[in-house]
Structure formats: structure tokens, C-alpha cells
């Protein structure tokens, strides 16, 4: 035994590293196949579940109505939606495996305690493609923990896994720290479902440079990539671009970590967005959610101090989802400049120039591309271009919010990891730890949860079979 490590008496067939959706799907599946499972979750109990806590829905193919889903959503349509957001960069074999398996995953979820909302009334029009969890992602996580508990799965919270000892083509040992003490266990199988590295600012800095210091992390503070880094250092193969992460523009006043859904700002299409020099830098009317949503994180990251300001007037205030923090409000543009520390003259000039470039807004239509555009303006605003003219004026500050990273472990169809010399016999990966094969850039709402569910179940099945065999 390694010096300083305490051995745990209970024998486990399977150690699942992580405590989110993918980890739980793996643990439940393996336990149902008779394996003795322990979940090692870094977070304390109230924060368990990783980024799954913050999710809301899952994307599912279906031929005909299925559970809460209406109409149908074919494999090909799902796959084409994926190609659109990733620009074609995906592993077709794995992507289609997820898509095809998704139809059976949804009833499985319901069987294991997940409740779905009846089709939504109006918040989002995704009732055909996406099923929404009743109560959101944390309620899904709670349901899975209940189910896992009933199946005899042990859960250790605040268990920081530091190292998986790779010897030849086997993981021989899992080292973790719990309440300041070091422990080691020797399970037969290991499933790594411990998320990405977005909460590791130092790692983000490697890719983004010093700008990363000003990023906000939208999800759990516990996705620090410890296990991912440890495995990569030992030669486990990776996939995906380490410089890529999914970043959106969120409310600049959001917490540094864990702000989640309420930091979302949907005001951009109805606003002009300026940087701290009160200068516009991109077409705010380019497209509507979700495409537009994902580009602004990157745009804001390229501005000085990584901040921007979305400015609207009173006629637009109620056209988007309410925000968690109230906007800065002012009766004049001078006052708004003063309150937001934007250069006053420049701001007034930018708005005057923008207003002068606006034409008739008779065709203005807030929910579709309306071609109400500016003329002769750089950058132009190609939709929803209405003058900022009716006080009071409102301003939301924007910052880059990182949601997840794409660098991941490379896996095969059985979720198995490998080194240059071939598969690691008893190591599988699920969830964000391996999603980079399918999602290399961009994002498709609800796909992350489906990857976690499908590959969590595959990893759990394979790990249990190996342990039983």
C-alpha cells in the first residue's frame, strides 16, 4: 500500500468518479447488473450533480409522440441539427449511436424516477425536440440519487479523486482525499464521469491567455479537470481542442461560479451592444436563439477587459425573459453613461449614429428575423433595428460565461478509454469527460444530457460486465 493512504475495507466492483447525470446513469445501470458500486463525488451534498444541476432538458429522437414529446424527430433531422452547430466536426458513428439510443433512454429515465413537464406553455418552443425535467436538472439528479440509494449504491461526497493509477492496460488503484485524509481503493472497474475543466481558471488561461481571468464560470465550481488531467498525463488518449470552450455572454454581475440559468440575458437582439469605449463591434441582429446566444461569449471575450454593455430603451424592456438582476436605469443617455462609467460623448454619438441609420420599423417582429435593418452602418444591425430613443434607457453589463469545455477522453462505442497501445481494460468514460468526440464546438440544447445518459448507461453496463466476468 502506498504510504499515507488509508485502505477502505468495503470492496467495490465499480468506482464511479463524479456525481452528475452520466455518473448516476452508470452507477444505476451497473448496480442493476449486480455490481457493488461507489460514487466518489467531489462536491458536498447540496452541490452534488455537477453541471447537471443547472440543466433543464434533454434532446431525444422519437418516431411519433413519446412521453412529453409531440410529433416526431427523426435520426437524420437530429443529426443534421448537430452538424449545423458543430460545423460538421463530429464523430458520426458515436453521434448516431447517441441519437439512436435516445429514443429508449427517455422511458428508461422515467422508469428511474425522472419526471418530465407536460409540454411547455410558451417559454421555449422546443416541445418537439426536447423534453423538460419537472423542476429542472437538480430534481433529475435527486431522483437518480434516490434510485441509486435503493439499489445499494454507496455515495461519498467531498471525496476528491486525485489519481487513477494506470499500470499497463489496467487501472489498479483510485486515490482520493476525504476530510483531509488520503484513501485508496482498488475497484475492478472505473468509470470516469467527472466533467470538464471549465472551473479550472489556470487551465482556461493556457488556452485563452490572461483574458480568462475575467471569465465567469456558469456551472459548478467543482469541474476542475483533475481526473482528466491525471489520465492525459498517463497517456490516455484525448480528443477535442483544448482551446475550445462553450462560452456565452451573460449578465456581468453574475457570481464568479455557479450562476447557472438565471444569468442568461436575452436582450441582445433588441439592443445595441457596445464595449467599454462605447463602440459597437458586432451585428446584434444576426440571428435568434440559440445560435446568437453562443457567439456573444466569444465576442465579449475579445473586447477590452472582456466586458460589454447592452443598451435598450423602454419600448424593448418587456420583450425578453426577465433577468435575475435589474438593469441600470436612467432618464437620459448622459445619466446612463454616468451610471455605467461609459464615456458619455462617445455613447451619445454611437447611439445617434445608430438611430440615424435605422429606417422604418413598421415590420418589426420580435420573435422572427424581421429584416428591420440599418443602412450604411458598420457594423450593421440586420434585424430588429429600432432607434434607442424612448426613455427611460436601460443597460445590462455583459461578460463571458463559460459553460463547458470540449477537450475530452477519446472513447470507442463501448465508452472504453485507450492509450496508444490499445484499450484500457477497466476504464470507461461518460458525460462531459468524453463528450468532445461528439461536440467539438457549438452546442445543441439538450444534447449534453443525452450524451451523458446514453454513454453513462453504456459505461455502467460494460464496467459491470467486466467486474462480473
Amino acid at each position, binding site marked *: 500500500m502506498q504510504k499515507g493512504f488509508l485502505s477502505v475495507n468495503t470492496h467495490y466492483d465499480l468506482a464511479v468518479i463524479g456525481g452528475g447525470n452520466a455518473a448516476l446513469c452508470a452507477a444505476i445501470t451497473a448496480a442493476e447488473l449486480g455490481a457493488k458500486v461507489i460514487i466518489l463525488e467531489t462536491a*458536498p451534498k447540496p452541490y452534488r450533480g455537477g453541471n447537471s444541476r443547472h440543466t433543464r432538458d434533454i434532446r431525444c429522437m422519437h418516431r411519433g409522440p413519446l412521453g412529453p414529446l409531440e410529433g416526431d424527430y427523426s435520426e437524420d433531422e437530429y443529426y443534421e441539427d448537430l452538424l449545423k452547430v458543430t460545423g460538421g466536426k463530429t464523430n458520426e458513428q458515436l453521434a448516431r449511436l447517441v441519437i439512436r439510443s435516445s429514443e429508449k433512454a427517455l422511458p428508461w429515465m422515467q422508469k428511474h424516477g425522472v*419526471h418530465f413537464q407536460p409540454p411547455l406553455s410558451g417559454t421555449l418552443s422546443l416541445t418537439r425536440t426536447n423534453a423538460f425535467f419537472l423542476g429542472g436538472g437538480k430534481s433529475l439528479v435527486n431522483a437518480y440519487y434516490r434510485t441509486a440509494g435503493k439499489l445499494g449504491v454507496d455515495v461519498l461526497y467531498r471525496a476528491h479523486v486525485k489519481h487513477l493509477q494506470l499500470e499497463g492496460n489496467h487501472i489498479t488503484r483510485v486515490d482520493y482525499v476525504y476530510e483531509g485524509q488520503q484513501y485508496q481503493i482498488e475497484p475492478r472497474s472505473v468509470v470516469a464521469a467527472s466533467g470538464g475543466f471549465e472551473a479550472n481558471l489556470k487551465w482556461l488561461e493556457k488556452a485563452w491567455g490572461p483574458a480568462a481571468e475575467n471569465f465567469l464560470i456558469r456551472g459548478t465550481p467543482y469541474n476542475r479537470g483533475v481526473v482528466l488531467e491525471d489520465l492525459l498525463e498517463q497517456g490516455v488518449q484525448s480528443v477535442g481542442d483544448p482551446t475550445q470552450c462553450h462560452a456565452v455572454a451573460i449578465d456581468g454581475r453574475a457570481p464568479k461560479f455557479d450562476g447557472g440559468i438565471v444569468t442568461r440575458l436575452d436582450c441582445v437582439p433588441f439592443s445595441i451592444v457596445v464595449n467599454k469605449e462605447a463602440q459597437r463591434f458586432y451585428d446584434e441582429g444576426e440571428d435568434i436563439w440559440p445560435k446568437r446566444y453562443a457567439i456573444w461569449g466569444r465576442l465579449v471575450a475579445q473586447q477590452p477587459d472582456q466586458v460589454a454593455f447592452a443598451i435598450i430603451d423602454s419600448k424593448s424592456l418587456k420583450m425578453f425573459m426577465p433577468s*435575475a438582476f435589474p438593469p441600470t436605469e436612467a432618464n437620459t443617455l448622459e445619466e446612463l453613461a454616468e451610471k455605467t462609467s461609459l464615456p458619455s460623448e462617445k455613447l451619445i454619438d454611437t447611439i445617434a449614429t445608430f438611430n440615424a441609420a435605422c429606417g422604418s420599423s413598421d415590420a418589426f417582429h420580435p420573435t422572427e428575423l424581421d429584416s428591420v435593418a440599418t443602412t450604411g452602418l458598420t457594423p450593421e444591425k440586420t434585424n430588429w433595428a429600432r432607434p434607442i430613443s424612448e426613455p427611460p434607457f436601460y443597460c445590462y453589463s455583459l461578460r463571458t460565461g463559460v459553460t463547458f469545455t470540449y477537450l475530452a477522453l477519446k472513447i470507442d462505442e463501448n465508452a472504453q478509454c485507450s492509450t496508444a497501445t490499445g484499450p484500457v481494460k477497466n476504464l470507461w468514460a461518460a458525460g462531459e469527460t468524453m463528450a468532445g468526440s461528439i461536440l467539438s464546438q457549438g452546442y445543441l440544447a439538450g444534447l449534453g444530457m443525452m450524451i451523458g445518459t446514453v454513454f453513462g448507461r453504456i459505461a455502467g453496463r460494460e464496467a459491470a460486465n467486466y467486474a462480473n466476468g
Partner: protein
Amino acid sequence: MQMDNLEEARRQAEICNACRYCEGYCAVFPALQLHRSFSEGTITQLANLCHNCRGCYYACQYTDPHEFNINIPQVMAEARQKSWETFAWPGGIARMFQKRGSLIALATIIGFAVIFYVIRVLKPSGGEGFYAIVSHATMTSIFLPAFLYPLFSLGISLRRYWRKVDGEKITWGQFRSALISAGKLKNLSGGHGDGCNFEEEDRFSNQRRYAHQAVLYGFLLCFAATCSGTVMYYFLNMPGPYSIFSIPKLLGIPGGLLILVGCSKLIQLKLKADPELGSARVWSGEMGFVGLLLFIALSGLLLFSLGGTAALPLLLDLHLGAVLAFFLLTPYTKMSHGFYRMAALIRDAQMKSESKK
């Protein structure tokens, strides 16, 4: 409503409104989403619509230790209690009552002391059964005002409530929708029929819903038993005591049993539930109230089964004293929540039909 709780309720409601993950759990969230800012009246309405099922708390990614520290069940419970204290007539009694549940016990003692006194001084003319101890006329002269007073007091309170929440003229359809919702306790169903998270963290269970329904329907049965007795006495010339197969007994005995079972379960659940998700301030008052209701049912059933023994007069004093205390205190105890809840459900039906326009 205290300013700090109102501000806190507003802060939390704004965060909820930006999230909306909980919209399927109960009526509070769809109602919340009709607003962008939250007046005191809106918070009051949301608070009285909240059934403290706690589903939203356990589903929320922003609860303690998160810096947003969202706890909607608690902030709503506090706002609800404050609103009842504000609307109660005459003011002051409710506040006093919430503070100490022991007051219920005290009121009970006073209640039956008065009965004792009445018995001793008036020397009732007598009759058969219970009326040999306290005459029917005596009972009526005590209980008729004791029954009308709370209705009068609650009427004033409900009018105050209605004004606060900008209520409009009530239609039969709105009333009916509220009645169905209250009867089914739809807002304790969790939106999926598995119930609420009251007793053990995130586990869903219908126990609180069913226990609550047992009390509600038990109470209505007992009330109907009393009404039928009154009708028989005055209009059908059929004075009591009644046999076990009479209408008052056939309604009253199952009613009493339902209250007994329901109240015991509610007390048991309340002991298991996390006090941090309710208004801890009024915990003793609420417990005292359920205890009182349970005592009434128990003493009533004992009266029936111990009829003819020497324990009867004392038991009757205790039972009547407790009933008297229950009625007189109705506007100031948890009993009033049923009336406010109905008002909130009616107002919710109005808001729903307005938003569809």
C-alpha cells in the same frame, strides 16, 4: 408585512422569474411569471397560494450554500403568516397567538372553565344524555354566538385580503375551479401526482396531502353532523341523543375518525420536516392548532364510546371547552388558512383568465 421579508421575497421572486424551472410544480410559479415586478399585494397573493410543499426548494440549484440563498417555501411562509396577522380582526390577537401555541391550551382551559361556571350557576333544566349535564338551550346560547363570531371576523379579514390582492367580482366558474383545486389539494400533488417533499428531503410522498384531506373531509363530515342534528332538533322534532344509525352519528363518527387519523399524521410529518423551510416563528402555534383539533376529535369519539360512565361530565366539559376555544380562535389560528387559501385560489383563477385575454 415587514419590509425586510417583503424585500427578500421580491429578491427571490425575481431570481425565480429568470429561471422558471419550477413552473410545473404548483400554481405559485405560473402566477409569479405573470409579473415583472412584485408589489406587496402580489407577494401576499403568491404567499397564500403557496402550500409549503417544498418541491421547489429541493429542485432549486440556488439554495444554501449558494450565494443566491433561495428558500421560497420559507420566505412565502413568513409572508403568509405576516399577512394573516395583518388582516386578522381585531388586530393584535393573531400576533399574540402566533407567538405562543401554549395560548391555545390556555384558551381551552378558559373555555371549559366558563362551561363549568355556566353549569353551576344556571342549573340547567336537563334532558336526556348530554343534555342532562348541559341543557340544549345552554349549549345553543353559548355556541351560536361562538359560531357566528368567527365568521364575522373572518369576513372582515377576507375583505382586507381581497382588497390587498386587487381581487375582482367573483364568478361561479372561478369559485368552482378554486373548490376543485382545494378539494383535490392539487397544489400538493407535485405536478406529477407523486406528492410533495414535506417529510424527508427530496423524497416525494402524498402522505401530507392525504392526511390533510382526511382532516378537511373529516371536519366537513363533523360539521354536517352538527347541522343535521340541528335540523332534526328544531325542524323534525327529533331531539337527541341519537342512535348509532342516525344521520348525525353516521356522519360524525367517520368524521371524527378521519380528523383523528389526519391530525396524528400531520403532527408526525411536521416533526420530521425541516423547520428551516417554514416559518419557524409560528411552529408552536401551528402544532398547538393541530393538537387542539386532534383533541376535539378524540374527546368527541370518547364521549360517544364512554357514554353512561362516570367520566362523561368531565369529558363533556373538556370537549365542549375545546370546541368553544376552536371556534372563537378560528380567525387567529391556522384554521383561518383554509379561508385565505380559497380566496387565493379564486384570485388565481381570475388572474389566469385575465392573462388569457
